[in-house]
């Protein structure tokens, strides 16, 4: 039975029964019933008119062939069009994970899709960039030494095979030491023409896992991996359960990784093949399923990996969130993660035998005159990168994004794992009734702000704390910002009271700082959730 017939039959049944009732009722009630009947009849009339014109439109669309791509033509929207759950065609036969949780912070200052012309002379290797390294590494160079890109700079005393190598060729100009002779920074002045140390190329087809790990560790490329739980440098003696790569970054003003890796298809594929040698399980690729068209072909075209699409808002692009949905880690598991650009770096090493740690760095922020991308090795000097910009005390330079990046001074350097720098205004001003009647736009999860009600108006945010720290009051707000099956507020409370068993039970090992950064952003009570989480992770790590 088609829809029209069914509608007609049910309506006539309804009308029939109503007239029956009206006929049997007398007195005051019948007047009311009669009126209701008129109203219903009018509604039915309009419903039929709408239904007929709807069908006519669909017929016309079919006649002229406008409905070929599956779009629905008609007067009334279909239910799924109203709620917006229809998936784009490219996701039809893929593994798709959809999450309604999260929030995309609308900020101004996204990187333009162009390469900026910057020349960086000074680079730094900073042991503090590497989490899980033993406190003072063994330095292998002295001031005045010249190094090639890929030459060892220092090694981790707890894992002597684990080499940290130079990003560029040049001269060691400074070794900054801190308290107890800890190494703060090893600064290298880069040569005009880069020279690369050559390594024996491992043969992807025949190399064993042990040889590959040895070769990557001695060239300083094992540093590109991070091991979960805890997000630390990998332990060379551990075979990871799986390796996860997120191919899109959903953080505010994050670089477009498809643009960043353009033209590196061959090295990226080679890198993925090397990765699959390193794990006993699989290499998983998290792809962006938010777009109307498919993710960049460099990622969709890779073979030998498991691909999952993710659809949702930040932090859906975080690899931790993706691991949780693909194959969550138990406290005993160890998995590795790696950034996409670093996969290509490993690929280049496999194919050419050189360590070329050059990455595309997104230079972002509403305070900059020019945003865009710069192709530089890791550890680039901020003052060189921002030499054409006027960055003053009123600005904050962040290595990374505004949620989980680190503040660095203008004399500082880009962090090892960061592929983005952001410059935002410091918010050191008093605002008259700023909490009640803000005069400028500011990002917020809350609908009490007009900008949020309008669907997220981008604003140039500043670093004002937007209120004072309070006890946990609001409940359920973190749940809406963390697309994982985890009870965040209960977990944070367990960390605060140092309840180790509960922390483990609630899944602390699945989280790292960047995953809860959005919760910290949206926290009404301005709690420092990332540092709370890290203190909990440290406790768990110390317990073993």
């Amino acid at each position, binding site marked *: 039975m088609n829809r029209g017939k069914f509608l007609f039959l049910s309506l006539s049944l309804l009308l029939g029964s109503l007239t029956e009732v009206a006929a049997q009722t007398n007195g005051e009630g019948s007047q009311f019933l009669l009126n209701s009947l008129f109203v219903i009849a009018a509604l039915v009339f309009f419903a039929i008119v709408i239904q007929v014109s709807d069908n006519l439109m669909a017929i016309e669309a079919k006649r002229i062939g406008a409905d070929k791509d599956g779009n629905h033509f008609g007067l009334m929207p279909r239910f799924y069009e109203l709620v917006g759950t229809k998936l784009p065609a490219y996701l039809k036969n893929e593994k798709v994970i959809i999450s309604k949780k999260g929030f995309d*912070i609308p*900020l101004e200052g996204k990187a333009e899709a162009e390469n900026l012309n910057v020349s960086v002379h000074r680079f730094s290797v900073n042991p503090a960039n590497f989490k899980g390294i033993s406190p003072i590494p063994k330095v292998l160079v002295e001031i005045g030494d010249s190094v090639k890109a890929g030459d060892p700079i220092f090694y981790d005393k707890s894992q002597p095979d684990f080499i940290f190598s130079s990003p560029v060729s040049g001269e060691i100009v400074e070794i900054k030491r801190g308290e107890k002779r800890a190494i703060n920074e090893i600064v290298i002045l880069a040569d005009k023409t880069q020279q690369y140390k050559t390594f024996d190329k491992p043969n992807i087809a025949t190399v064993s896992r042990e040889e590959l790990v040895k070769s990557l560790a001695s060239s300083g490329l094992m540093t590109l991996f991070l091991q979960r739980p805890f997000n630390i440098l990998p332990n060379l003696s551990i075979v990871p359960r799986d390796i996860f790569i997120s191919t899109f970054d959903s953080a*505010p003003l994050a670089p477009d990784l498809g643009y960043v890796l353009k033209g590196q298809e061959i090295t990226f594929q080679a890198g993925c093949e090397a990765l699959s040698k390193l794990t006993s399980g699989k290499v998983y690729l998290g792809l962006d399923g938010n777009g109307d068209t498919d993710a960049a072909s460099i990622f969709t075209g890779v073979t030998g990996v498991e691909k999952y699409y993710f659809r949702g808002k930040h932090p859906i692009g975080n690899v931790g969130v993706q691991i949780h949905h693909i*194959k*969550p880690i*138990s406290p005993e598991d160890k998995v590795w993660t790696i950034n996409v650009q670093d996969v290509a770096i490993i690929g280049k090493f496999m194919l050419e035998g050189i360590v070329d740690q050059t990455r595309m760095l997104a230079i972002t922020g509403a305070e900059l005159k020019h945003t865009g991308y710069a192709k530089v090795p890791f550890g680039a000097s901020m003052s060189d990168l921002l030499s054409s910009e006027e960055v003053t005390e009123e600005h*904050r330079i962040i290595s990374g994004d*505004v*949620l*989980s990046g680190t*503040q660095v001074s203008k004399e500082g350097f880009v962090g090892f794992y960061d592929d983005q720098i*952001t410059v*935002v205004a410091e*918010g*050191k001003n*008093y605002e*008259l*009734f*700023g*909490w*009640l009647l*803000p005069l400028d736009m*500011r*990002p*917020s999860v*809350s*609908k*009490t*702000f007009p900008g949020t009600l309008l669907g997220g108006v981008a604003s140039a945010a500043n*670093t*004002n*704390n*937007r*209120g*004072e720290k*309070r*006890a946990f*009051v*609001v*409940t*359920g707000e973190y*749940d809406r910002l963390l697309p994982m*099956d985890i*009870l965040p*507020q*209960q977990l944070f409370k367990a960390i605060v009271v140092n309840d180790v068993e509960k922390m483990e*039970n*609630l899944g602390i090992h699945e989280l790292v700082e960047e995953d809860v*950064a959005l919760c*910290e*952003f*949206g*926290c*009404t*009570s*301005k709690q*420092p*959730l*990332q*540092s709370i989480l890290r203190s909990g992770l440290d406790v768990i790590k110390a317990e073993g």
Partner: protein
Amino acid sequence: MKNSLLSFFLKIEPDKKKSPFMHTLYDGFFTFAFAPNHVTKGGVHVRDGMDLKRLMFHVVIALQLCYLFGTYNIGQQHFSALGMYEGFLEGFHLKIFYGLVQILPLFVVANVVGLGIEFFYAYKKGHGIEEGFLVSGALIPLVMPPALPLWILAISVAFAVIIGKEAFGGTGMNVLNIALLSRVFIFFAYPTTISGDDVWVAGLEKVDGVWTASYNFIVTGVLNPVFESFGWATYQNGIAVVDGYSGATPLSLAAKGGWEAVTARFTPEQMFWGNIPGSVGETHKLFVLMGAGLLIYLGIASWRIMVSMVLGLVVTGILLNMWDATPAMNVPWYYHFSMGSFLFAMAFMATDPVTAAATDRGKLIYGFFIGAIGLVIRVLNPAYPEGWMLAILFMNVFAPLIDHFVVEGHISKRKSRLTKLANS
């Protein structure tokens, strides 16, 4: 202008060491006027514009219609007891100003006492003044009878803030809802001022066994001359109530004579539109619903609690209707929404995030039990005609237990998921 105001404020800042109490006080008012210039340090660099002040203030905004109608209704009930000015606009100025004379002292006393204690504790503990009392102070006057003696109000607020909140560690730490705690304190300590048929209409006094209108000095000495000068109607002392008048609320009528007794005095429409005696702010159901709608729309109050509370009332109400053993049980379940303060309790009391269950599933359970237990108290308990206050406080105590079981369930679900994956 803003800058000169700011520099003036910064100039008068008291010394923190010399006069710590003044500094705490200053800090409280200064952060109210100016959002502080603190910047983020470590962690996220950009913060959401929402803070606790803004959150709480939106609850206060949602209460404003209740305040407006509450003010009017104090006068309306007073004059309708006297058989005067029955129409909505008749004697409008008399009703509004009489309402103001009653409600302003309630508001001022509740806030001065409550905030005073908050300020004192903030100074003692050496932290900033937290805004928890912003909402409590707005709620308390709305849940009190209009003619409550102010000294009783002061004691109850002091009790609630000191024992209910500061003893537990301040804002965000309290187990029981502060506004309801102050009300329940009066309910048990001074029951004659908050229960029975004689307390819900202000300005009536028993003279020789007859209730007559009686006004205080502000009404006769200040308002009357002003109205006279405009040539408007004035307040008249000593007018007796109409024959057979009773200040009984729909609930006490229902407890005695069921739905028939209620409808003999009030129509369902009258109860919905709030033209009934009751606590100050809860009578107008539409305005309460609008406040609830605003809170849900802005995502400030939990819709889960509200929906499950309605469900709890509906299920229990239908069951009680089917049982139908006492007069009160035959009140149709759907009229329980417009009698008494169910909707007000649902929108503003049960949804207090500090005292409610914290987990999503816990909120559903919490709300349902409030709806069910509250109606049981309302219908079955002979001593207490209204049940929401007690039901909410009761469930406040149980909220951590509910959360505990929800969290345990979540943990075992996580474990089984992991073992399933390990075996796959």
